């Protein structure tokens, strides 16, 4: 039987390195299958997160040959033949052990997003076309690959100032919901740090759900922020009418 060679990161916060494993290669095998084979036969304590194994839960995020990937969706036969497959934990988050990282920060960001707030007394009817875009955003499986690849978080570590693409997508889903009554531009500007995104579109490239994160979510939100907070005409109108920004 043909064999695959994997170099898997083993270690924790105190350090570690790549370790070589060999596993029998099966047709249609994905990297997660190989990791499970290692767990089941060679390294029972190899830490990896996974759940659905169907690219629907976003648990098994890691880096394969340096690229952020879902392990369950990365086929072994799509990787360069004859070379070891390098599997490492997400780089943007602190390591827990082996392929598992501490992603709790994401859950803290999510808590701060002003929740869905339905319009009072509205009729709950809308056209499918009106929610196609919102449904695109709601496809997100929270794999955090976009957070991992985003240079604001990955290279500059700005978890203090930037919510990351995942949560801009979530805000976009709320802002564009036909029944939502809230304005979140102040949150986007001041808390989510949307200005830090300089639209390199790396997040869109890695999204396993093919959400057009930058063009469909982030750019329209940036426009809303500009309209509400930087547009001189609107500033003047506000001055005259006395209306506040978030009304």
């Amino acid at each position: 039987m043909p064999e695959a060679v994997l170099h898997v990161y083993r270690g924790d916060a105190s350090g570690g390195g790549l370790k070589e494993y060999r596993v029998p290669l099966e047709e249609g095998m994905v990297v997660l299958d190989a990791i499970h084979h290692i767990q089941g036969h060679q390294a029972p304590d190899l830490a990896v997160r996974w759940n659905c194994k169907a690219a629907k839960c976003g648990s098994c995020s890691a880096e394969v040959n340096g690229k952020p990937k879902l392990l369950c969706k990365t086929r072994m036969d799509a990787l360069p033949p004859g070379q070891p497959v390098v599997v490492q934990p997400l780089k943007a988050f602190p390591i827990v052990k082996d392929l598992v990282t501490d992603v709790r920060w994401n859950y803290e960001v999510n808590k701060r997003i002003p929740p869905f707030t339905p319009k009072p007394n509205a009729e709950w009817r809308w056209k499918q076309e009106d929610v196609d875009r919102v449904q695109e955003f709601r496809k997100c499986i929270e794999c955090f690959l976009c957070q991992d690849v985003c240079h604001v978080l990955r290279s500059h570590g700005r978890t203090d100032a930037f919510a990351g693409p995942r949560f801009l997508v979530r805000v976009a889903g709320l802002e564009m919901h036909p029944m939502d009554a809230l304005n979140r531009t102040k949150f986007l500007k001041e808390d989510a740090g949307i200005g830090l995104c300089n639209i390199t579109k790396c997040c869109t490239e890695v999204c396993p759900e093919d959400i057009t994160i930058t063009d469909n979510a982030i750019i329209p939100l940036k426009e809303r922020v500009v309209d509400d907070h930087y547009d001189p005409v609107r500033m003047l109108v506000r001055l005259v009418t006395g209306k506040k920004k978030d009304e």
Partner: protein
Amino acid sequence: MSERYESHDVDVLVIGAGGAGLRAAIEASAQGARVGVVCKSLLGKAHTVMAEGGVAAALAHVDPSDSWKVHFKDTMLGGKMLNNWRMAQLHAQEAPDRVRELEQWGAVFDRTQDGRILQRNFGGHSSPRLAHVGDRTGLEMIRTLQDFGVHQGLEVYMECTVTKLLKQDSRVVGAFAYWRETGRFVLFRAKSVVLATGGIGKAYTITSNSWEYTGDGHALALGAGAELIDMEFFQFHPTGMVWPPGVQGLLVTEAVRGEGGLLRNAAGERFMERYDPKRMELSTRDMVARAIYTEVKEGRGSPHGGAFLDISHKPAELVKKKLPSMYHQFMEFANIDITKSPMEVGPTGHYIMGGVRVDADTGAATVPGLFAAGEASGGMHGANRLGGNSLSDLLVFGRRAGAGSAAYAAKTPGHAVVDPAQVAAAERELLEPFERASGPDPYSIHRRLQQSMHSLVGIFRTEEDLVKGIEEIRKLRAEANTVRVEGSRAFNPGWHLSHDLRNMLTISEAIARCALQRRESRGAHARLDYPNLDPELGGVNSVATLDDEAVRVSQSPLPRMPDELRALFVAEPAGVQS
């Protein structure tokens, strides 16, 4: 003693954060209880995300003649009349409100032409009844509940596994758990506990279930002295992927058939004609699973041992719009474009109808302070669950168990003092595998259990196989008490499995013993040696309890349906065909 541990005091402790657990937590919190939610994985990753086709509710948006009574009837007939009638009634009556409520919390369902929630066909439902979002309804549901819940102030303990319920006298008063990340122990003192842990698909080789589905809630309940009912009814979903090997068992949503997908065998015949000519592809899951199994067994299977499921006669754009994740799943995992070629599918272990015996209205188990909802509870689905009835079950009975547990907590004055002996025993059980110098590894025992369950306690059963299966499980249970675990307590999957395995083995034994006891074929329980329905057995639930580690089974009479509901079935003898 308990000072040695991190500990938390809550009014209601919910174990499990899928649809049922989150809905229970939200309700308990809305009733004023302080709620803790413990889940084995990260929040939002529970198996509810894998539910694809939709949530069944008689909204009557597509078929105006639909009503709770028709939904109730479909559910009872699908369950071969073994369902707890009161649960089936509450479920059918309340599901529409639960779906509308979800929409008001931000869920975005697909729309009808006139702008309302769209509904699709599904097996065993006599009207288009499933509210859906393409083929990712479960994700929509869990994300909506998750986001609603975090703003309600639920305390969520992620990647934390409960291994024992703590008791004072007969009452459940808390839980003992460990953190996955560090392996450190943690105590929860609670006035009531809700089990919402899902099922036990991981006891089978081919399954649509994730690693979490190891019968934890079932085993915790048994360990606390509660009763399980109808454990012999384990559903094989008719359509799982059969190739390539790595994705064997992966779910192919029933929505493919709901949207018009056809099943054919190797000879090109629409074989459902021979099994259920009236409903064909939209027959109930038990029927379709057995039909595919039989076609393969009799040599009419597809190249990789399944049946062909074909949706390619529908416009490609419609397929991509209504079944996007199926399109991607087959494209990426099997190099098949389902808008052009058929899929190969076969039965996959999916769902257990049996579970903790509960009071229909409150979700209360037979032990004070203990509640259960969703797949962990039994009764709602009888001998076979209809597709789409699980998501509605989670919402309806999650809410009810949340209210029941909060009410129980409200009349409980304070937290009980934790019994050090129970904690010490729970701790010893978890640490022993590290202390053994030698012993089998948990992975190999797990693989053997899966093979035994598949070949001996599978789709078709016989007394001989079941007896052999029970022997095999008992042998494995003994071996599981001798496993050795390598490495440290920090995020150690081998160690986690060594404990999950004990749950799987206990519950697998309950499944096999209930299956041996029920000498008839009904719904998902098919006995080759007793191929027909036995009307007398249609009047009894199977009961499983634990007696000092030994699984005991017995029978108890089914609750009697009131006459006004019974009248719905008068003209319906079809309800009692297997």
